[in-house]
């Protein structure tokens, strides 16, 4: 019989998994609404406005539609893989959130129980994230192949090539983050950037901004969004790898896409924007009372908004351009940047606040 303490630890862990999993499952509901509203605003339309106030219930209506539609498996499809693919696409992306820290430890009042706002703090967190996010591509490959359709197959192939190409650049960017922060654990990466926005990795001059841009572009390519949404290029591939999917399985695939978007936003925040760190440090005392989770969510939300904004602003790249950017620009650039980061780490490891302090300026 395990002791009460162990049971409590396991219980809290389960609770955290349930909360995060549930939140991620529900995240696409508001996100689709926001995305469609934003698309409307950018194109001077209204977006959904019929179902519920401001069309807020539109995602629910869509969900009901997805539930009751007929679930079609093409006759000559490989039905086992066809049914497995949506789960394969979804599971790895959910698994990323196992290591994501949402905030510092909090103490529950009255019972004085300390809860950490992450599920686990792996000492190999960042590699885990990269490894797991790399698995998401199987959903696309198998989905595309099992549909037994040329469009789906080509979509799957494209996404495979694209993800492999950009995973290299993304991993290099992660290496850059590890070098800047000096740890593989996501919690340590966040704490290493604490103390205001001047300490964030994005402002680790001169290499920080470059890593940020590399990670951002690679992340956009990894989650198959415009401008890199080759796998579902309507013009040439109908709908790409999910052209044969319908009803719930299609819903799962698009759920996976939305959660991937959230995960990239979360990773950007953790790696470059100091996670839950208060941007103004303790410059404005009142801001100290804002819960850190709020900052985290705010930054993630800003990135999600940015991704959507981007989607309705720029067209998609051609396939050869995509590969050129990946192999001929991003990878050499990140290799050079690794060298530069290493040099700086050895010879001039200063953040902006350090420099300011040296000239006698103390902000906070």
């Amino acid at each position, binding site marked *: 019989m395990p002791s009460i303490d162990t049971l409590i630890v396991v219980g809290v862990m389960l609770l955290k998994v349930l909360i995060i999993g549930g939140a991620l499952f529900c995240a696409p509901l508001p996100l689709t609404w926001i995305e469609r509203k*934003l698309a*409307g*605003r*950018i*194109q*001077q*339309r*209204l977006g959904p*406005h019929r179902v519920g106030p401001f069309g807020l219930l539109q995602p629910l209506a869509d969900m009901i539609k997805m539930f009751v539609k007929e679930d079609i498996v093409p006759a000559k499809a490989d039905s086992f893989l066809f049914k497995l693919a949506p789960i394969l696409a979804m599971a790895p992306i959910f698994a990323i959130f196992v290591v994501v820290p949402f905030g510092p430890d909090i103490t529950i009042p009255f019972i004085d129980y300390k809860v950490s706002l992450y599920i686990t703090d792996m000492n190999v967190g960042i590699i885990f994230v990269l490894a797991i996010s790399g698995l998401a591509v199987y959903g696309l490959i198998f989905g595309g192949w099992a549909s037994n359709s040329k469009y789906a197959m080509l979509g799957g192939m494209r996404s495979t090539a694209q993800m492999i190409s950009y995973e290299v650049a993304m991993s290099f960017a992660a290496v850059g983050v590890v070098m800047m922060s000096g740890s593989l654990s996501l919690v340590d990466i966040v704490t290493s950037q604490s103390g205001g926005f001047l300490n964030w990795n994005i402002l680790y001059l001169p290499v920080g901004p470059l890593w940020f*841009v590399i990670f951002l572009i690679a992340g956009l390519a990894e989650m198959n969004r415009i401008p890199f949404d080759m796998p579902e290029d309507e013009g040439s591939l109908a709908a790409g790898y999910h052209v044969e999917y319908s009803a719930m399985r299609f819903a799962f695939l698009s759920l996976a896409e939305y959660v991937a978007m959230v995960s990239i936003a979360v990773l950007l925040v953790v790696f470059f924007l100091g996670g839950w760190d208060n941007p103004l440090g303790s410059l404005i005392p009142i801001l100290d009372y804002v819960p850190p989770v709020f900052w985290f969510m705010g930054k993630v939300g800003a990135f999600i908004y940015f991704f959507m*904004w*981007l989607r*309705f*602003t*720029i067209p998609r790249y051609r396939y050869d351009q995509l590969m050129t950017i990946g192999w001929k620009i991003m990878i050499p650039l990140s290799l050079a940047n690794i060298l530069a980061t290493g040099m700086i780490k050895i010879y001039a490891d200063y953040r902006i606040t350090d420099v300011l302090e040296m000239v006698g300026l103390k902000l906070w």
Partner: protein
Amino acid sequence: MVDIIKTVITRVLFLDFIKGLLVTLKYTLSRSITLKYPDHETWIPYERFRGEHKLHRNEDGRELCVACELCVAACPTDCITVVPMEDETGRRGINDRVAKVWEVNLVRCLYCGYCEDACPTTAVRLSRGFELACTDLDGTIREREALLTESPIPEHYEGGVVVKAKYIRKLIQIKPELWKQKDWWPAKPGRSKKR
């Protein structure tokens, strides 16, 4: 040289991207041109608009139409049918004549307004009704009784505006609330709405 430096700066700082993003941001903040037609807002056309026909009466409530069939003659598509009625008193003054049948086929009509021009008593006038959708072909023919009803938009109401509308479920009808005008798309300076 200056050009090269400029290009490099543009590329490195993603200035073109930012420019594009600003364009869409401007649109995000601008107003939407979509109307919540028909049950929240509706567009009232300008006065010159030629829509569904209406037959009119004079101040005493008498029908203006004298069944002279000039509109029939003028109509290029032959879509008006007028059959005059002679009342039982036998008097045949032009003022007393009324139409027994006055119907117009709205599917064949091309809304040219010739009938309106041809009418000596200005009985037939094209109103601003444009919601002519119907579920069967019978609905495309307007009889005299229907044509004699008043249009929801008065003749002298100045159009070119968006007004609030209400959906009346019982009548399956949209009722524009003409006095509740909405400032829809701000008129460009120098292009006044008033004539």
